[in-house]
């Protein structure tokens, strides 16, 4: 096993594999930066190029590209408040808030630092999980996956403002998200729900236009109204020191970064939960680390921990989602489904063989994720401070560019004008929510988890009747969900003002 682990590294470091990886990393870099253009689509477009490659080279190319998308996606989220990827939207909440305070460099440093840690944790979790991966994945049937979605929804308690009013608004926003998740043809009876007699809504709401609308549009309006640069009128000198400060933050809150990486890995392993969920659970967990009410209020207003959490999770989930793909031939996300096509092209059969006869190759994938992220983060640091300076450019000059990114990005979801309408409508909803002081994160969490919760609940009841409620893992997860809901209350009771009892 150790041999295979090291051989895997050597395979990746061969010049040909490394060259292909660099090519992939270069591509993934841009794909991540540009909103809308997603990792999955790019993977599909690149698939034909691997016909003539060796497996190690092909995976270095594809995975190298895929592994950095979430890393550079964070950059767009932090700098402009526009989600670079559907999986990097949670970084906006605190990352963009920091940018507005003139801390873009620090936020970017934290995003990249945590991305790197996340990628490493995810990759090593993949390596360690190999012996136990089959039983682990097989324990989680539909009832367990439903309960995981419930645990996810329970994080609304952490994502909402404190106090009765804040909670009420948070859970109502979450409920609204769940409601929007029901749009489209339902999978049990085939009935079209809330499609407004349009064909466009048959497949439900596309995540990218919704996220871009709800997060980016309100910020653009805000920027127009303020009439300043993104970072206000702060002296530009302050910006330049930030990037290394952000990197240091990653290690200052190392425990949190690791825990959020593990959350990401775990969600990644579970097929069927989808890539967009992990970041929000990690963000919810990050807010739990607030030591007092003052600190809790700082989340959403530019707390670096709110960047570290999702930054780590959206990278660590990649290692995680490779696990079911490799071990069962069952992809954990759309990107992995396309990667699976790559396996077939190369004549490999994903499944138990990948953990025995092809173990070296599997480990080479682990190493690809590691090396690709190290390269990206190092390369990004070279011009991070330059990027951060963009936030001192006057808003009037930036806005046209950002608007183009926003609408072109949304349009690439389906190449349909409906995408633009969805962006505008949710932009309006997002703006109203911001103005009225309603939290947007619970809404997105509801939207992301709605379909998952609905379908797995239906399957659980149809398959097991009421018996699924007594499954041990279901009960454990139920207890966990309760803890997550009650935690903010316990926290507010236990904390004395200003005292940090548990760090």
């Amino acid at each position, binding site marked *: 096993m150790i041999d295979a682990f090291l051989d895997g590294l050597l395979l990746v470091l061969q010049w040909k594999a490394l060259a292909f990886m660099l090519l992939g990393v270069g591509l993934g870099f841009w794909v991540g930066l540009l909103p809308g253009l997603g990792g*999955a*689509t790019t*993977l*599909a*477009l690149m698939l*034909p190029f691997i*016909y003539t490659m060796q497996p190690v080279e092909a995976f270095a190319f594809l995975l190298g590209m895929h592994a950095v998308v979430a890393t550079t996606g964070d950059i767009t989220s932090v700098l402009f408040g526009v989600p670079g990827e559907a999986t990097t939207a949670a970084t906006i909440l605190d990352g963009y808030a920091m940018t507005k305070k003139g801390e873009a460099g620090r936020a970017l440093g934290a995003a990249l630092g945590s991305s790197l840690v996340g990628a490493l944790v995810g990759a090593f979790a993949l390596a360690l999980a190999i012996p136990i991966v089959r039983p682990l*994945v*097989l*324990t989680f*049937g*539909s009832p367990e996956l439903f309960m995981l979605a419930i645990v996810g929804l329970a994080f609304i308690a952490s994502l909402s403002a404190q106090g009765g009013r804040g909670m009420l608004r948070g859970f109502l926003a979450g409920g609204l998200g769940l409601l929007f998740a029901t749009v489209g*043809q*339902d*999978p*049990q*009876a*085939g009935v079209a729900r809330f499609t407004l*007699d349009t*064909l*466009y809504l*048959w*497949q439900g709401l596309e995540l990218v236009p919704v996220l871009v609308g709800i997060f980016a549009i309100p910020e653009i309006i805000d920027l127009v109204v303020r009439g300043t640069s993104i970072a206000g009128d702060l002296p530009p000198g302050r910006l330049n020191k930030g990037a290394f400060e952000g990197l240091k933050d990653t290690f200052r809150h190392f425990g949190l970064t690791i825990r959020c990486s593990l959350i990401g890995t775990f969600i990644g392993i579970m*097929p*069927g939960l989808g890539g967009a969920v992990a970041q929000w659970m990690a963000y919810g967990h990050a807010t739990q680390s607030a030591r007092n009410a003052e600190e809790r209020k700082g989340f959403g207003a530019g707390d670096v921990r709110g960047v570290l959490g999702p930054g780590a999770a959206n990278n660590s989930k990649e290692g995680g989602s490779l696990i*079911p793909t490799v071990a*069962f*031939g*069952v*992809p954990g996300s*759309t990107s992995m*489904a*396309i990667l*699976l*096509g790559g396996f*077939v*092209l*190369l*004549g490999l*059969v994903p*499944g138990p063989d990948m953990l025995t006869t092809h173990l070296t190759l599997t480990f080479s994938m682990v190493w690809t994720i590691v090396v690709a992220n190290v390269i990206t983060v190092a390369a990004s640091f070279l011009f991070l401070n330059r990027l951060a300076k963009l936030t001192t450019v006057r808003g009037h000059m930036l806005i046209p560019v950002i608007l183009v990114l926003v609408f072109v990005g949304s349009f690439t979801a*389906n*190449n*349909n004008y*409906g995408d633009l309408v969805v962006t505008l409508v949710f932009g309006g909803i997002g703006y109203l929510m911001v103005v009225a002081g309603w939290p947007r994160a619970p809404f997105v969490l509801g939207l992301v988890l709605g*379909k*998952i919760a*609905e*379908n*797995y609940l*239906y*399957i659980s009841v*149809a*398959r097991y009747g009421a018996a699924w409620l007594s499954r041990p893992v279901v009960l454990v997860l139920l207890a966990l969900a309760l803890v997550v809901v009650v935690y903010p209350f316990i926290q507010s009771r236990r904390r004395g003002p200003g005292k940090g009892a548990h760090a």
Partner: protein
Amino acid sequence: MRHTHALFAVFGLALCAPQYGLAQPSPYAGKTITMVVGYKPGGGYDATARLLARHLPDHIPGKPTVIVQNMPGANSLIAANHVYGAAKPDGLTIGTFNRNLPIAQLTGVAGVKFDMTKFAWIGSASSESTILAIRTDLPYNSFEDMKKSGKEIVIGATGPGANTYDFPLLIKDLLGVKLKIVSGYSSSSDIMLAIERKEADGRAGSYSSILPFIDRKLVRPVIRARATEPGIEKLPVDEDLASTPRAKAIMALRSAPEVIGRPYVMPPGTPDAMVKAMREAFAKAIKDPKLIAEAKKAKMDLEFVPGDEALKVIKEVLTQPKDIVDEFSKYIKFGE
């Protein structure tokens, strides 16, 4: 001297000109053909289209560029409406979409703005056989065993309109096998995992997508629909086991579009010469050893069904008597 040379050159060109005229530069020379795919990148329809787009230029006179444009939505109704109503019939647009669109037209799905028989049909690039496979650790070796046992068998499915759902539904209701269809899985690979953890006992789907799991001895195929492929010829066919002509007709209707599993059309009114050129290009490209080698690697098996034959299948579907259509609509909803 130089003037004379130039003069000769001009004359020479003038002499040659009629010959160039005779050679008739292909209408496709220097042009770009857009292939509109009704799905997102990554699926089977998209993979087939991209494979063809890579090899078609070699077989179209004038070597045009062929690009793929994804236009997903409403199980590819949006793409079909676009190719039918919005795209110019100038021979530069090809559409490929859900093989079940004739069913959508037949059952009067809202949003259908096309008549399948009026497209300029190129043909189909492959047929897709649907099978039902169950776990190998179940004590049934054949469909007969399964039916006789009378025990409930749990079938995982994605949702109505997909072959993971419709095929077992007809087996359950028309052949009287005790199946319990549980739908809501997000993809067919999700169902495969449910089978692996014994939450589901089996699933239906295209033979090509289940084949890796048959090879791995996780599941075994027990029954198939009309369209066949090497390896499953000997399986019982659902419509042969039907006890009434009505049941047989309904099953046959569900299976009919599978023969034209990857339909390719051009907008109505595309000049015949261009449609003909495209049919020939498809036929040649699908026989091209380079394409076959690539398809083999991707575990795809292409077989060209020319446009007139495809149209025959479409007409067969669309000319069903009303009572059969009404009965059919009770079971089958249009979906992916």
